């Protein structure tokens, strides 16, 4: 099934514009209840249906069914990152907003990156 672009919003949050955290944020609208979506996120059985990354170890930080789930995950090759899901009921079903945050708390990465590129030019 192809997901329409309109339903998949979100650019990587500008690699940190201003003082924004170094994070990426995406969202999707799903024709299902928040409870059904939450079940697919919070249980191993549910995740097996869509999350094809068995090498990543998941540690749940907090779970507030059916609206919020936060986990940390990592693999041998990747540093641990924090993933937060917000599930909001909408007329069409549920909107899921996922935010993955890098280990950095906050820094103006975009501004700095542009500066580094200027130096490189």
């Amino acid at each position, binding site marked *: 099934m192809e997901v329409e672009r309109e339903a998949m919003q979100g650019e*990587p949050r500008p690699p940190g514009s201003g003082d924004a955290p170094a994070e*990426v944020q995406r969202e999707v609208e*799903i024709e299902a209840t928040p409870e*059904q979506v939450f079940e697919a996120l919070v249980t191993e059985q549910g995740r097996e*249906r869509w*999350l094809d990354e068995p090498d990543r170890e998941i540690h749940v930080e907090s779970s507030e069914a059916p609206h919020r789930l936060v986990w940390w995950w990592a693999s041998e090759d990747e540093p641990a990152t924090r993933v937060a899901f917000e599930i909001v009921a909408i007329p069409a079903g549920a909107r*899921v907003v996922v935010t993955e945050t890098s280990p*950095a708390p906050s820094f103006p*990465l975009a501004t*700095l990156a542009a500066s580094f590129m200027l130096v490189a030019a």
Partner: protein
Amino acid sequence: MSDPLGPVFFALADPTRRTMLAAMVRDGSASVPSLTATLPISRQAIAKHLATLEDAGLLERWGSTGREVRYGLRPHALAPALDWLRDADAAWGRRLARLKEAVESTVE
């Protein structure tokens, strides 16, 4: 676990170090004396912050004038961090597409 981004993120997480980088962006380079003149911290603290930035690969020594070592930004040093963001964004696009498909196929 290999974590090449860790030192970069750690270095950038400190506001004083970000101010020092901003000074280098503005002035082209910086040294302990030049930063001491603009920041309300000791020379020792500035030297320590510069070492952290240098260890993270964000700075390089541009040479010295007398006893004054000048530092400048290391080109492309932030590329791995930017790559992480681009890769993570693309991966979540794919994951959410699969999540949508999986949940909706169950509901139908």
